[in-house]
């Protein structure tokens, strides 16, 4: 099939390398399509330059504050004494989950040198020299969120402690056993993390163990009524 000017839009829409190649060959003999392809490539090359970053040191404290206020408002509305701790743990957990998610995704690709008309729309990411610094910062944010989350759960554990010291029923005894297993898993995971602070997989695993501990403590407190 012969490629004509009317096929250009379909080639650009499909984003298929084969169609691009046909368009490129056609553009060698068609000035209008050549210009269209060149501008298409320029848009792709210029767009990453619109990615913006700026310091906003008060943003995260603002977010944290508004989440804490929301948590307190809910706790007051619901009037359940343990709800506050549950919400505080959920807030810190949410912050930790998101921070870890953003670290795992990593920064978006940096702008690459402009592709010529012969390779429209193709950009390859390059290593950002600030990436390491950003990763360090992100890691610090994760560790701070993690510490808040852990502190909330440990507070909840303190509340549940009297129930676990002398479990009066088989159900409470099994909760105690499960919590001991979870604590052992947390200790193992922490040892591994101490060997490699940047291992996001281990951090995710640790977070999921803490989430399980939180669920268990909540179930235990609900069991007590």
């Amino acid at each position, binding site marked *: 099939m012969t490629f004509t000017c009317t096929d250009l*839009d379909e080639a650009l*829409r499909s984003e298929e390398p084969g169609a691009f190649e046909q368009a490129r060959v056609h553009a060698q003999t068609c000035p209008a399509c050549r210009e269209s392809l060149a501008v298409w490539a320029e*848009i792709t*090359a210029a767009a*990453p330059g619109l990615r913006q970053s*700026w310091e906003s040191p008060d943003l995260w404290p603002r977010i944290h504050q508004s989440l804490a206020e929301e948590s307190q408002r809910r706790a007051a509305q619901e009037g359940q004494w343990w709800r506050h701790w549950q919400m505080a743990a959920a807030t810190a957990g949410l912050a930790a989950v998101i921070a870890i998610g953003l670290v795992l995704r990593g920064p978006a690709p940096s702008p690459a040198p402009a592709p010529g008309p012969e390779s429209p729309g193709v950009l390859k990411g390059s290593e950002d020299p600030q990436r390491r610094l950003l990763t360090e910062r992100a890691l610090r944010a994760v560790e701070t969120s993690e510490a808040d989350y852990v502190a909330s759960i440990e507070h909840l554990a303190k509340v549940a402690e009297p129930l676990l010291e002398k479990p009066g029923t088989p159900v409470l005894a099994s909760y105690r056993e499960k919590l001991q297993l979870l604590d052992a898993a947390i200790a193992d995971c922490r040892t591994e993390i101490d060997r490699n602070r940047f291992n996001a997989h281990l951090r995710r695993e640790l977070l999921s163990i803490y989430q399980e501990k939180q669920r268990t403590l909540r179930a235990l407190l609900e069991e007590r009524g």
Partner: protein
Amino acid sequence: MKSVARNLLGNASDAEDAVQEAFLKLYRGLAGFKGDAALSSWLYRILVNTCFDMGRRRKRRAENSPAAPEAEAPAFDPPAPGVDPTVGLTIRSSLDRLPPLPRSVFVLYEVEGFKHREIAEILGIAEGTSKHALFSAKKELQARILTSRRWRPES
């Protein structure tokens, strides 16, 4: 997240407010989260919707107020070598004239580096719709760039 919001709203202060509001909405809706998408995708979806809500509110305020809001000076990284700097300026000034879906897809794909699969999850659309919206956004920007070049005197 701030960059996405700024490119959708056009200024840093509104962008930070949008990010804060998105976190609060995420927290409020956490109980309804079914885990059918990544939490980060859900957060981005809330952010994009928050940006468009804020944009609509701002437009209504502007229509009711006689004083035009002050436009923030465009700020972005220097273009890559060999890239015509006016292309970036044209894109920036044209973004808010694009319909919401093509604008969101363009910002997420071309500016922020998300893949169509991720964008589909974030915006709750099909991958094909994301590709079509990107094409539509770039076609509009291409037309504006070509028009501006035809009107630009030869140097």
